[in-house]
C-alpha cells in the first residue's frame, strides 16, 4: 500500500447557533445522513452516503459559529502513536491532548493539537464502519453503484476545508514536515515571493485535503467542502439550493486553483459549505503550481477573474 500515514480528512466539527435548522440544512438540503445524537453535549453526528466510517461531520450547538476542530484518519494505531510523538517533538503545536475512545461515538482515541494558525486538529486511527448501504461482502456482495433514498444534494464524501489564519508558514511546516503532506498549489506575493499567502496541501491523490489562506486572524473557518461526481451535479446542487432558498455565496463556477467546479453556500448559522466536482490527480512528485497575488482573481474564480467581496471578508 502506497498511501500511508495520514489517510484523509475524517471529520469536521462545526458549531451552529441552533441545532434543528442546522440539522434540516445538513440532512435535507446538503443530504448527509444522521448516524448518532449526543443530547448531553448538543451534538449530532452525520456522514455522507459513500463514506464507510461512522461519521464525518459533527454539528454542535454553541453561541458562536465556526469550526471546533478537524480530524484526520491515520492508517493504524501505531502510526497514531508515532505521529503524536512527532507533533510533540516538533514543538510547533499547542494544547496537545489525548481524547479518550468513545468521546465521539464509535471512535477510538484521538490526539488533538492546535496548529500555528490557531486551528485544532485531531489524529485518530479507528472508527466503526457503518458501510455505504451498497454492499461490500457476504450477502451484500456485488455492490450497487449508489444507494436508494438519498436526499438533497447528496455528496459522496466530506472532502476538505479551507481555513484562515495568521501563521501560515508554521502551519505549513506542521502539515508538510511532521504529517507528510505535499504542497499541490501555492499563492505567493509577487513583490515578495518568499511570502506565501495561500497553501493547498494533500495527504493523498487529491488536489487538496486542506487549504489555508493567510489572514490576520486565528482559527477561522472559510468552508467545509463535499465531493460530487460531476459538473452536472454541481448545477443540480444550485437548483436544490435555490429551491430551498439557501443563501448562495457564488457559483456554480470554476476554481483556477485545483480546477474544481464549485458552488459556495451558507448553512443557517453562516458557516460556508462547498460542493464541488473535478480537479486532478495529485502525486507527490508533481511540482507545486504557483499563483501570485496579482492573479488571485482567476486563481479563485476562473470565470469572473476576480474574487467576490465575500471571499476574503466572510468567514466564521
Amino acid at each position, binding site marked *: 500500500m502506497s498511501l500511508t500515514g495520514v489517510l484523509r480528512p475524517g471529520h469536521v466539527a462545526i458549531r451552529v447557533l441552533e441545532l434543528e435548522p442546522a440539522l434540516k440544512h445538513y440532512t435535507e438540503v446538503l443530504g448527509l445522513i444522521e448516524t448518532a445524537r449526543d443530547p448531553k453535549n448538543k451534538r449530532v453526528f452525520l456522514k455522507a452516503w459513500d463514506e464507510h466510517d461512522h461519521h464525518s461531520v459533527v454539528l454542535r450547538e454553541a453561541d458562536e*459559529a465556526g469550526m471546533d476542530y478537524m480530524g484526520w484518519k491515520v492508517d493504524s494505531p501505531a502510526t497514531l502513536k508515532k505521529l503524536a510523538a512527532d507533533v510533540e517533538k516538533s514543538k510547533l503545536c499547542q494544547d496537545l491532548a489525548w481524547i479518550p475512545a468513545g468521546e465521539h461515538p464509535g471512535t477510538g482515541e484521538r490526539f488533538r493539537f492546535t496548529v500555528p494558525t490557531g486551528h485544532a486538529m485531531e489524529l485518530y486511527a479507528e472508527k466503526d464502519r457503518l458501510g455505504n448501504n451498497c454492499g461490500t461482502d457476504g450477502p451484500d456482495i456485488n455492490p450497487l453503484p449508489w444507494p436508494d433514498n438519498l436526499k438533497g444534494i447528496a455528496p459522496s464524501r466530506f472532502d476538505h476545508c479551507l481555513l484562515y489564519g*495568521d501563521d501560515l508558514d508554521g502551519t505549513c511546516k506542521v502539515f508538510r514536515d511532521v504529517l507528510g503532506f505535499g504542497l499541490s498549489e501555492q499563492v505567493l506575493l509577487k513583490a515578495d515571493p518568499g511570502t506565501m499567502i495561500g497553501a493547498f496541501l494533500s495527504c493523498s491523490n487529491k488536489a487538496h485535503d486542506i487549504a489555508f489562506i493567510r489572514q490576520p486572524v486565528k482559527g477561522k473557518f472559510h468552508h467545509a467542502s463535499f465531493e460530487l461526481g460531476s459538473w452536472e451535479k454541481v448545477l443540480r446542487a444550485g437548483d436544490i439550493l435555490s429551491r430551498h432558498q439557501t443563501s448562495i455565496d457564488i457559483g456554480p463556477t470554476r476554481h483556477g486553483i485545483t480546477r474544481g467546479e464549485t458552488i459556495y453556500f451558507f448553512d443557517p448559522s453562516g458557516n460556508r459549505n462547498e460542493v464541488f466536482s473535478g480537479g486532478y490527480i495529485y502525486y507527490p512528485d508533481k511540482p507545486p503550481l504557483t499563483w501570485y497575488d496579482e492573479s488571485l482573481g482567476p486563481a479563485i474564480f476562473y470565470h469572473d477573474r476576480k474574487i467576490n467581496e465575500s471571499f476574503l471578508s466572510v468567514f466564521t
Partner: protein
Amino acid sequence: MPHLVVIENSGERFQSVDGMSVLAAMEQARCRGIPVGCRNGGCGACKVRVISGRYRTGKMSRAVVSVADEAAGCVLACKTYPESDLGVEALGRVLQTGPSRAASFSFAIPRPESPRSEREA
C-alpha cells in the same frame, strides 16, 4: 405593516414588509449600503448600529456580536426584524489585527466596514 428603514451612512431608504430582516429588505430593494455576507447571523459583515426605532433579533454569533454590542444596539442586519420605522448605521466587521498583518494582504480587498471609512476619507 410595512416599516421604513433608513441607512444613515448611504442615505438609502427602503420598506421592510412581512417580517423581512433589514438585510433581506435591503437586498430586495436593490440597495447596497450594508455589506452582505452569509445572511445567516454568523459572519458579522452586515453589522449595524440601530440609531432609532424598535426591533427584535434572531440568534447571532457571539464571535461577532457581544453582549455589550447587543445592549448598545449593535446587531446584524440579517437577524434584525423592524417593529417600527428604523434608522441604522452600517458598521461591518472590524478585522482583528495580529502580528502578521503586515505580511498578509497587500492584495486584500476592502473590508465590509469600508462604506463608513470611505465616507470619512
